[in-house]
């Protein structure tokens, strides 16, 4: 039965694999058996992740590229398809965030966030889906949204817009590619302890405030996202498509608060 969750012989392409949640997710895909293609800008960091995967007995290939460069994405995926023969799983995790008051914000910031979070996701998913369709073995598109895919947050209008857009993109791809046995789903993480969240957790009281409105009363550990990813990437999720799977300790589905001091 556990074999149902195995990713052996699969090729998985994951963006933003050098740090944050992308790093443990990439290692999880590899540990489940997939040949994992690591995408991000920083080649040195990617090599470090690849070395960790290989040291653990897994398979990985680095694909350093800038996700705002459309041609680089398309060429990169074609190169992977040509060298590894297939793409079965596309995990679009790379994303950027910036805090700005909506009334003071500038369009350049909005464009920058939409370009990386939405447009790059679209191009990568489209290119991978083309390889999946041609291979006629089906496939899995897994886009990483956020708790802010479905709820709003002050001073993050561009990020919230981008993460909600990913849901629309995913559902539309689910509707269109289902007949090719290609599923498309979103994983929507809540608050996780990662290296990119250190600026948040450094704010006095922030970590505790978030825990206080989370039913599980704590932040998620990065490895707690890995199980959901492997499940969705595996044969076990065959009839699941168009879904947004919240992994947030219950924040989004409940109203929890602490009495004011």
């Amino acid at each position, binding site marked *: 039965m556990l074999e*149902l969750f195995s990713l052996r012989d699969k090729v998985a392409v994951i963006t933003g694999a050098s740090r944050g949640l992308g790093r443990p997710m990439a290692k999880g895909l590899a540990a489940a058996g997939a040949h994992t293609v690591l995408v991000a800008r920083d080649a040195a960091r990617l090599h470090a992740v690849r070395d960790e995967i290989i040291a653990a007995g897994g398979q990985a290939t680095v694909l350093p590229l800038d996700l705002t460069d459309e041609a680089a994405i398309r060429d990169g995926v074609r190169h992977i398809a040509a060298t590894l023969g297939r793409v079965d799983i596309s995990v679009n995790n790379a994303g950027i965030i910036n805090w700005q008051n909506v009334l003071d914000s500038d369009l350049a910031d909005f464009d920058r966030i939409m370009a990386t979070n939405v447009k790059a996701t679209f191009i990568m998913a489209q290119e991978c889906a083309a390889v999946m369709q041609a291979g006629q073995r089906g496939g899995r598109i897994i886009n990483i949204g956020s708790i802010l895919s479905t709820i709003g947050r002050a001073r993050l209008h561009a990020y919230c817009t981008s993460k909600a857009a990913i849901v629309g993109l995913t559902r539309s791809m689910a*509707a269109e590619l289902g007949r090719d046995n290609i599923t498309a789903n979103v994983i929507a993480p809540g608050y996780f302890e990662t290296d990119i969240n250190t600026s948040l957790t450094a704010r006095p009281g922030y970590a505790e405030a978030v825990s206080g409105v989370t039913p*599980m009363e704590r932040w998620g550990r990065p490895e707690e996202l*890995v199980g959901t990813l492997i499940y969705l990437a595996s044969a076990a*999720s065959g009839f699941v498509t*168009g*879904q947004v799977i919240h992994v*947030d*300790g219950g924040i*989004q589905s409940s109203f929890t608060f602490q009495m004011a001091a």
Partner: protein
Amino acid sequence: MTEIFSLKGQVAMVTGASRGLGYEMARAIAQCGARVYVTARGAEQLEQAAATLRAQGLDVRAKAFDLADPDQCVRAITEIGQAEGRLDILVNNAGINAWEPLAEAKSATWDLVMGTNIRGPYLLCREAARRMVARGYGRLINIGSAMSVAGREKITAYVASKHGLAGMTRALAAELGPKGVTCNMMAPGYFLTDINTAILARPGYERGVSGRIPLGRWGNPDEVGGVVAFMASKASSYMNGHVLVVDGGLTETFVLPVDV
């Protein structure tokens, strides 16, 4: 890595498990290594199902009781708790449907559907959670339906009950989360189960439904195994209060049966 899906050493209970989707859920959980108590009202059919699963080398025990009877619900959990000293996983799958146009709908039907689909699961969650909280770990999995997130004509009580079960799931997630017990819902769409034989026999029904589904087909019963095994395992440890719909994309997309 697939070890995180292992349920070895754990004890589970799956209601409505003598056939259909419940049977497949019980099978998957047992295949992941848990001892599974399968339950249903009819003892004979249930024992037969348990025997079939045991013949596959699985650790499965039958416990027949009526979900509509509160005393029997409490007793069932108490007995498992006493025998095993633990209950790690509860899957509230048993449910009934009743087809009644609103104008003809009887309040007795409403009570029956609510009693089986909501009150029974509520009691089992309560009794199971007491034991889970005491040990600081547990997985409550309520089985909803595509009708937990969408409506459909002439099955008002069913739709209300399945929406209600989603609400209960979220409330329990909020309350039990701090205590190590998660509560989630798996909501299946249209599956080719024997209980659906009657509607599948209606001319045009099967293709009418599949024409609205991105994957272009009904689900096979064994396709609920993987998702429930995932939700029952440590792999889902930070997922709480979630309604995971398994419907081939039906409720999240707008697909016309003809390409126009």
